[in-house]
Each structure stands twice: as structure tokens, then as C-alpha cells.
């Protein structure tokens, strides 16, 4: 039975997206994750990470965001911890994705995509930390891309 995990920290800087992709690729190749699911998890991580660095801090200081990815029994678990402002994405207002073009906004789409892609999302505020735990059940057995 495959039981894999990876942990890494990223600074609150957009340049860290390359490291995010690299770490995720390492993790996914270990568990043989298909392209579609790899992109979906990458998207979720990118959206949450960029939200945190864009809106979570009101200073110019360096902050670290911790990621823990694990895979067991066909489920991917992602845990993200940051010391940004209290924010629970589960309670974020849903964007209007049916209104006319002129009224369409991007705000909230990252969280919306996350909620649609992941099966489970739990937020905790512990001390000065936001902790977000997300899970996705892989419906097929992981297969390497051919």
C-alpha cells in the first residue's frame, strides 16, 4: 500500500510558484498521479497560495507558508498553514458565475475552483495560524501517463 508524504515551506513571494510546482511534481510522480489530477491539485495550491500572499499580510516582512501533502488509501490530503490574517475560505462569498459578461469578476474564483475540485475542506484558526486541510479522493487507481 502506497503511503507517501511531502512537506515544504514557501516564502510569501510569487517566485515560489516554481518550487510549488516542482515539489508537487515530485510528490505526484511518487504516487503515479495522472496529469488531470496533478493539474487540479496544482491549481488548488496555486490559488490558495496566491490568495494568502496577496491578501494575508499587511506588512513587508517575509512569511512562510507550510504545505504538507500526503496520500493514503486513494485519498490525497493537503494541509496548508500560514500566519496571515484570520481567513476561512469556506465562508468566502461565492462568485456569481452566471451573470452577464459586464458584471463578471475574477474575485472569489480561486476559492470556487478549490471547492469544486476538492472533496473536503476544513479550516481551523489556532493561535495566529490559519490551518486549512483539504482532501480529494482519487476515483480511479493512479496510473502513470502513457
Amino acid at each position, binding site marked *: 500500500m502506497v503511503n507517501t508524504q511531502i512537506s515544504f515551506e514557501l516564502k510569501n513571494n510569487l517566485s515560489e*510558484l516554481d518550487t510549488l510546482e516542482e515539489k508537487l511534481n515530485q510528490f505526484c510522480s511518487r504516487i503515479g498521479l495522472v496529469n488531470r489530477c496533478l493539474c487540479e491539485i496544482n491549481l488548488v495550491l496555486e490559488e490558495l497560495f496566491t490568495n494568502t500572499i496577496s491578501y494575508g499580510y499587511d506588512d513587508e516582512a517575509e512569511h512562510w507558508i507550510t504545505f504538507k501533502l500526503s496520500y493514503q488509501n486513494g485519498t490525497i490530503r493537503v494541509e496548508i498553514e500560514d500566519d496571515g490574517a484570520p481567513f476561512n475560505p469556506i465562508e468566502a462569498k461565492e462568485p456569481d458565475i452566471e451573470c452577464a459578461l459586464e458584471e*463578471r469578476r*475574477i474575485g472569489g474564483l480561486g476559492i470556487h475552483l478549490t471547492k469544486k475540485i476538492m472533496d473536503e475542506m476544513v479550516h481551523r484558526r489556532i493561535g495566529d495560524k490559519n490551518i486549512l486541510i483539504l482532501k480529494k479522493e482519487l476515483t480511479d487507481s493512479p496510473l502513470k501517463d502513457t
Partner: protein
Amino acid sequence: MEIIEKEQAGVSIFKLVGRLDSKTSPEFEKRIFDVIEKGSKNMIADFEDLDYISSAGLRVILKATKDLKRAEGKFVLCSMKDYVKEVFEISGFDSFLPIVDSMDDAFKKI
């Protein structure tokens, strides 16, 4: 990400190779708006070699679509991989943006 730009029959065509994310979308935004500023009204984005898109990429596409619509022009996207198309569908972008399977189909929509 690589952006290959060309013009055909008065339509600006952008072929994107790689990933359209928070890091690479500013470059795409600049290229699209340069072309819009020069008066281009009709645009096709060829996503055949686009491996990934995030909401940062959607933001550029939304902005361009709105501007082109105001100029009575059109923006058509073609040849998307299925998981890229999924992002557009989940975001509800397929309700206002023509998304077709091939470049030929894209020209028919303009």
C-alpha cells in the same frame, strides 16, 4: 510560457505553449493589450499546447473579452486540453466565451 503571435485574415492569433498562471499571465496580458491598442478587434487563442491555467489566466481572458466586446469584436478559444476546459466550465466562462475544438472552427465563429 511561450507566446507565438501571428495574424491571419485580419484576426490576431495567440498560440500559448506551457502554463498560464500567476507568474506568466502578466506577459500574456501585455501582449494581448498591445494588439488591442493597435486596433485589433478579433482574436483567437490557440490552447493546443497549453498545459495548465489558473484564475490569473482567466482574469486576462475576461478582461480581453470585455474590451473586445465593447469594440464589437470577438475572442474565441480553441483546441483546449480537457482539464484546461474543465477550469473554464467550473468558472462559468463557457457561457460567454466561444470555446471550440479547432482553429478552423474558431475562424467560423469570428
